[in-house]
């Protein structure tokens, strides 16, 4: 048999190997430079009480989640039931960052879909989002007692990510 004729097959086998490896990786997962860095400071007006501000300083001393959401965000609907369930379990406080959104639609959205947030703050012009390197909504940050970002979930939280990554990390951080 002519060995040259095996070349296309060999190329394809290598290609298929890479494609298989690629299936188990998430192309959207870009390592955030913010991991293990102090969470950028903010103090923003609360969605339900614009007169009062809430910021990173208020959360110091506890492990908390910062969830970036918006009423215009379709994928947020996907993760929302998980957040609501998580809030009911009262494991960890969740602060919502209502990103590039208006208060009216934001409140309506929470009224319709349930409000899992300890507090939601308004990032109307998206400047805090920029500090956190948000490039897709939803995104979720796990922040520890000292105010350091320990994990970033890009895109909707999945049951899998919640059980295998976020919750174990939260419990571990809460112990320390």
């Amino acid at each position, binding site marked *: *048999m*002519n060995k040259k*004729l*095996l070349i*296309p*097959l060999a190329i*394809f*086998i290598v*290609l*298929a190997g*890479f*494609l*298989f*490896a*690629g*299936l*188990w*990786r998430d*192309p*959207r997962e*870009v*390592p955030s430079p913010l991991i293990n860095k102090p969470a950028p400071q903010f103090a923003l007006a609360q969605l339900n009480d614009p007169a009062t501000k809430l910021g990173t300083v208020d959360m110091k001393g506890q492990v908390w989640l910062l969830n970036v959401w918006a*009423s*215009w965000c*379709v994928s947020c609907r996907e993760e929302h039931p998980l957040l609501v369930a998580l809030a009911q379990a009262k494991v960890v406080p969740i602060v919502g960052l209502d990103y590039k959104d208006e208060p009216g639609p934001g409140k309506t959205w929470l009224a319709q879909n349930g409000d899992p947030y300890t507090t939601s703050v308004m990032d109307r012009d998206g400047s805090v989002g920029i500090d956190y390197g948000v490039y897709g909504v939803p995104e979720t940050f796990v922040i520890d007692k000292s105010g350091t970002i320990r994990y970033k979930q890009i895109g909707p939280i999945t049951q899998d990510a919640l059980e295998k990554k976020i919750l174990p990390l939260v419990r571990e951080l809460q112990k320390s």
Partner: protein
Amino acid sequence: MIPELGHFALILALLLATILGTLPIIGAQRHVRAWMALARPVAQGQFVFVVTAWVCLAYSFIVSDFSVLNVATNSNSQLPAYYRFAATWGSHEGSMLLWVLMLSIWTFAVSVRSRHLPDEMVARVLGVMGLVSVGFLLFLLLTSNPFERVFPVPAEGRDLNPLLQDPGMVAHPPMLYMGYVGFSVAFAFAIAALIGGRLDATWARWSRPWTPLAWSFLTLGIMIGSWWAYYTLGWGGWWFWDPVENASFMPWLVGTALLHSLAVTEKRGTFRNWTVLLAICAFSLSLVGTFLVRSGVLTSVHAFATDPRRGVFILTFLVIVIGGSLALYAVRAPKVGVGGRFEIISRESMLLGNNVLLIAAAGSVLLGTLYPLFLDALNLGKISVGPPYFDTVFVPLMTPLVFLMGIGPLSRWKQASVPDLWRRLRWAFAISLVTALLAPLAAPQWKPLVSFGLLLAFWIVTATFVAVRERIRNADGGLWAQIARQPRSFWGMVLAHLGIAAFVVGVTMVKGYETERDVKMNVGDTVSVANYVFRFDGVTETKGPNYRAARGSVNISRNGAYVETLYPEKRMYNAGGMPMTNAAIDSGLFGDIYVSMGEPVDGGAWIIRVYSKPFITWVWGGFVMMAIGGFLALSDRRYRVGAQRDSALPRGAAAAYGTKR
């Protein structure tokens, strides 16, 4: 009830596909006539059931049956009827069903238009298509059932993604899939020939008409997709080297190579191993493209929700089909022989050059598309490969290709002479060179790259003109008779090559002279671009069937004289999501004026984007000419006669290869 009927029809189609993929092929090996005879009726039965399933799904969408999960997640009762219909292929499940539908349409077409083929060939070709169909039907039924029900039934659907609510959605996917999947026919013929060990000129002639048909559909599909991106994404780009675009472009490049190589195999009996490999590759790349889009291994604007289970399924299928075919190729191809001799300067060598360049282009697109994945898999970091890579690679590959495009049609088979070619083409070359240098002087600025691009385009035009003149001068009669005497496949080639020229002109001029302004405008503000003055007259609220829109009004004048008013829109769909941009475009033969709305800024002002896109219409025009060229070649008498009756082999081929008839 209707969705269950559809589901049931799919299961029956799977059963028939399984029969089609086994009995006729075994029958052809063992010479069991009754088994081979099953191929046609079973293929047609499978077609009937797949169409039934698809009609059931389309019906569920049109009547808004939200008890079907697929309808509930991808449609909405406010959606206009034509988008409800198009939403049939708006989801992952629906688009896979469209894939299967296209495959069964092609299978059906082969079963009807194959009366002149020997029984073994028909049995094998349809059998191979049946096997492909088995894979995709299994995929649908096991991982992506489009008919899944949801209880309790939601009162309203979640709506079709607003980005897809566009006339492009009605035409682009069916066209594209028709082309993509159409390469399965040439593939099936190639595999059938490899199994049967009869890889001769007859095989090329039988499979030849199917390739330009698929290729033309693919060309149109790509064009519609590109045009759609151009007017809806709001910033005037028309090709992004997005992984999914690349997934459709690679089969196109290889399909173009196949088109040319099949011609050589049919006419000269040469390139046989090569042609069969191209036929396998073209369809394999269609499958790889499907995998890339469906599995989510690459980020893309087209990606649907990802599910590794689906990815593993398609990849396994891919390995079986492509790996199996290439293994079969490695084992069987040597028996077939090389066949034919030709000199270094000959039409064969030019077409071989064409093939090599097109394959190199397809290879570099594949490399660029998968490079991020390679690096990530080897833990070398995350990168993305963008337009600069592709632009850098493409121009050097396309330049010699265009050069060959001019000479090829004028060269003799077997042996051509350089002095002779030079004598016939020197005027064409001189004229295109001079025109290319002078033409950009009419533009605001002379640019070397524009001259270079125009040289390529003019070279195609003048050399093609020489080829046409020489061809018709040798025919008898008046000019009209001389023109009519040439086969349509010749005119198809001429038109397609001129289409490339038009395309090159479009790309060159847009890249060279497009201008854009991205400005904040208050009511009454003006901005000028390319001799036009644009005045922003404010925004009014309008309502569509399922969206609200802010509609801007932009008054355009030239040298103080009113030209027209354009109305770009920013739409918010009732079902939510990001606002959508609908650009307002004044299209003309010499270019477009393009206005789109950015974001509102404080106090009634808006960010307005204004573009002048000279000659951009030539880009689409070029695509359309290529597609029409393909259809024209297909209507050639030769194919029609060939399809009716088992006509004689091309002269010389039978004698040279001793084919049994």
